[in-house]
């Protein structure tokens, strides 16, 4: 497949690894912010190819993992209702709420459907005019154009029974939150290429200069990640703290303007709870006044549900790079992908799940 296969070329990968070894003189800790990158790093065995001096920590860049338990509980309650078709991205179905997950709700008789695209939820609403269609609109900035489009289309088509349970998070405030922690050990970042495809890279210069860290906007194929790491290590070794763009084939300085316009029509910025990290200011989106009638939390009277997170899980520290999954007492014993305690064990690319699945020899 064009634009995938060439970025998985073993010979070029070996050259990048050799080049990284050549320039690495000191130990460095680099965080890849995005779960998709974590997935690629583990799936391709990249960590083990790198020199010992380089430590990669896996950031909170998985919207499934950081969705607060309270939101999941709301989803579970709505999905269990008899007149509801609850549509969700597949990876969300296994995320544990305080007592169960959406797959269990389905087994108990709820109509829960895994969909590929937000627009599929709109189609389901058109096909089932008598049912309440609720779409679990989770995601980072990358998924926002599609989620906003679903809201826009539903309104245009007058689909009165379509609503969205919104759980949107924003990457730059999370990076700031991690960097502002006094215990933070992260010295350089690979920023999430697909988030930047939508939003552009302008938000990162202030972060880079305030916290004095290099930030390299990076793609998702093995060669992208190796090049991103090379660029980041090269800056670290030379004492530079710039924003660079490795992923030039899709990321533009300003991002996708049309997508941003629709996003700002449909969503507004709010403070938000992150599972494991707590509340981060200005780090989430909810529907604007114009679209508030699509908000499932109002429609199903869910506003008052409050729920606390499980205390055994150290997912917050893992997602900030303060600890590795193996340092959690529950890792691979009490907590496995089949019985996840915390969010990073749930999604295939949550840091804990990725470690459990692919391991490190």
């Amino acid at each position, binding site marked *: *497949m*064009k*634009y*995938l296969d*060439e*970025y998985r070329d073993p010979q*070029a990968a*070996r*050259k*990048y*690894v*050799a*080049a990284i070894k*050549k320039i690495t003189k000191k130990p460095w800790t680099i965080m890849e912010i*995005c*779960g*998709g990158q974590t997935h690629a790093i583990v799936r391709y065995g990249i960590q083990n190819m790198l020199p010992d001096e380089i430590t990669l920590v896996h950031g909170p*860049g*998985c*919207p499934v993992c950081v969705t607060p338990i309270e939101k999941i509980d709301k989803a579970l309650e709505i999905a269990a209702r008899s007149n509801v078709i609850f549509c969700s*991205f597949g990876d969300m179905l296994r995320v544990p709420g305080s007592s169960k997950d959406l797959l269990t709700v389905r087994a108990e008789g709820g109509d829960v459907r895994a969909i*590929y*695209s*937000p*627009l*599929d939820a709109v189609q389901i609403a058109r096909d089932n005019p008598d049912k309440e269609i609720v779409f679990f609109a989770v*995601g*980072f900035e*990358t*998924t926002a*154009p*599609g989620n906003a*489009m679903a809201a*826009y*289309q539903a309104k*245009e088509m007058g689909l009165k029974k379509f609503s969205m349970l919104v759980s949107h998070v924003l990457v730059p405030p999370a990076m700031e939150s991690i960097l502002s922690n006094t215990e933070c050990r992260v010295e350089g970042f690979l920023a*999430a290429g*697909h*988030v930047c*495809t*939508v939003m552009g890279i302008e938000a990162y210069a202030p972060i880079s200069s305030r916290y004095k860290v290099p930030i390299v906007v990076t793609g*998702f194929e093995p*060669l*992208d990640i190796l*090049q991103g790491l*090379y660029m980041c290590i090269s800056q670290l070794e030379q004492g530079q703290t710039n924003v660079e763009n*490795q992923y*030039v*084939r*899709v*990321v*533009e300085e300003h991002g*996708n303007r*049309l*997508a941003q316009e*629709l996003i700002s029509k449909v969503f507004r910025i709010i403070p938000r709870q992150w599972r494991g990290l707590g509340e981060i200011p200005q780090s989430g989106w909810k529907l604007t006044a114009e679209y508030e009638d699509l908000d499932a939390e109002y429609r199903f009277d869910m506003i008052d549900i409050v729920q606390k997170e499980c205390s055994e899980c150290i997912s917050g520290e893992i997602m900030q790079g303060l600890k590795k999954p193996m340092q959690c007492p529950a890792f691979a014993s009490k907590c496995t992908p089949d019985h996840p305690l915390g969010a990073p064990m749930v999604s295939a*690319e949550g840091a804990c799940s990725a470690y459990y699945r692919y391991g490190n020899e």
Partner: protein
Amino acid sequence: MCLAIPGRIIAIFGRDSFSRMGKVTYGGITKEASLAFVPEAIEGDYILVHAGVAISVIKGEEARKTFEYLDQIGEVEI
């Protein structure tokens, strides 16, 4: 995050900008994607698709950069 995969547009349909759709092929399978956010995309273009929505047109001339960069940083003994 975010699983986004490059595919090639083989047909475009839909009336106004926000209902613009395309048939997109990914190595032998075809699925529809929204082209609302890539109005510049034409048939034959490669686009990056996330959850059924195109978020960018892939710039072919920039795609070599990863390999050119490797050449620039010099021959490395392996």
